[in-house]
């Protein structure tokens, strides 16, 4: 299904675009400028909805005809009924949540399954930067200094798997990426720059 026009998407979003079933009801939490939603709407005819906190990005979404609500995922997911969506998406946003555990639970309350991607803080370059320089790493995927970053809950692949297990959440599939390419799962907690998980209850 490379025909969904996902070529321009970031690799984790391209995987999500391939995996979402045709005609699904989709909520993209932290949908940015709506690139993934627009791709899904055109390629998969999904019922596409989004939440985004930045009003400039929301305006861009609305201007491209998407149903996107300006809101705070920490607060506004509660207003959606149980099982309102077939698929909930949280891409590169989990680490910004006030309580990632609660957000994950909320995601799987409103969605029957969820795709969650996040930067892996245990990626070897992170570990090396911390070990060699003794300072919080600033990298391509986490480009902002510690004092101004929105990423307030850094997480590793292993941390996420443990959290999922403790919440009774099933990991259906996982994908790993380094330097904008998909990589195998072996030693992912070392080797992956960021990860994508498909989870369900």
């Amino acid at each position, binding site marked *: 299904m490379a025909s969904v026009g996902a070529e321009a998407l970031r690799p984790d979003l391209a995987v999500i675009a391939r995996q979402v079933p045709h005609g699904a009801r989709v909520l993209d939490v932290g949908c940015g400028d709506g690139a993934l939603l627009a791709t899904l709407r055109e390629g998969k005819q999904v019922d596409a909805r989004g939440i985004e906190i930045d009003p400039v990005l929301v305006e861009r979404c*609305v201007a491209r*005809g998407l149903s*996107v*609500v300006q809101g705070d995922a920490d607060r506004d997911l509660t*207003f959606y009924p149980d099982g309102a969506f077939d698929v909930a998406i949280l891409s590169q946003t989990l680490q910004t949540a006030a309580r990632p555990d609660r957000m994950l639970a909320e995601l799987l309350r409103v969605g029957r399954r969820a795709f969650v991607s996040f930067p892996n803080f245990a990626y070897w370059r992170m570990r090396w930067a911390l070990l060699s320089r003794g300072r919080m790493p600033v990298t391509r995927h986490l480009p902002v200094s510690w004092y101004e970053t929105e990423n307030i809950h850094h997480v590793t692949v292993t941390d996420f798997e443990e959290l999922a297990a403790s919440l009774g959440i099933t990991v259906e599939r996982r994908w790993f990426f380094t330097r904008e390419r998909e990589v195998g799962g072996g030693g992912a907690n070392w080797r992956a720059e960021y990860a994508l998980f498909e989870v369900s209850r």
Partner: protein
Amino acid sequence: MATHAASNVYRLAAPLPLDSGQALEGVEIAYETYGELAADRGNAVLVCHALTGDQYLASTHPVTGKPGWWERMVGPGKPIDTARHHVICANVIGSCMGSTGPASLAADGQPHAMRFPVITIRDMVRAQVALLDGLGIERLHAVVGGSMGGMQALSLAADFPNRAARILAIATTARHSAQNIAFHEVGRQAIMADPAWRGGEYYGAGASPDAGLSVARMAAHITYLSEEGLTEKFGRRLQDRDAKSFGFDADFQVESYLRYQGSGFVQRFDANSYLYITRAMDYFDIAEEHGGLLADAFAGTTARFCLVSFDSDWLYPTAESRHVVHALNAAGAPVSFVELSAPFGHDSFLLEVPALDRVIRGFLDG
């Protein structure tokens, strides 16, 4: 003042049932249209006007000679594009620009005055829908409105869930707050305290309650602007003088401005209409009309929604739009919402806010 009937007028064949339990006979609805109606009648956009607005959306106002109130938004190639859409704007019932209101003549040949029944926003919407029936428009491409126009758009979505494909509600609310009602009551009391009001029986009496209506407009006008906007525009600057007069002239520019707004308003608006329309807005509470839960009001809707608020609007602040958005989320309706940044307060929806143009264009095309 008399009513104006320069527009097209549609006369309802049947009495219009009202929320009060009464029915209004011989209702006339004055309306303007812009752009061609497509052969399949699928390109109609209904624009609902605000409290003191009228049907002169994108054409010259016959009394003031000023351009239409939303000419910057409506026209060929504009966000509400009359080259592609058939745009309809009707004067609300209760008003004074050609639709039936308190200044219209009752069956006995005398103006209704205070015999006019108290109406609601839903009654205004019933009249709008009756007009659509008359025009043979089954399903609108969109309903668009700001302020009281947005209330009508939301009310139409709740009560006529199949009549519109898109609902665009700007700077509005699903219910009037205590503060909203309070400001309106100040305006009504100003009108009724004017000796020329005469219990509403001033038509043909030679004098209208202009002083009262002017004060009502002045008080309301403050609520349409932001404090920041007032400070920037006027500050404490004096009007055509170098020093305070130690009297009660309009020493300050802001006083002069408000007096000008008030005196201009009475040239084009009927005091009794102001009473009736503000009352309709105060009675507005969509949730109450649908068993108390706002989400239930939108349970049957088939429309996509877009709500827009402005960060400087303290009359219908963003929280009110969010309240509607959450109800629509709960009802499963597709909804967009954005709070735009603009310095002009509630009136931002009428003024130069380029982001609003982009949102409206995108939503109507999507």
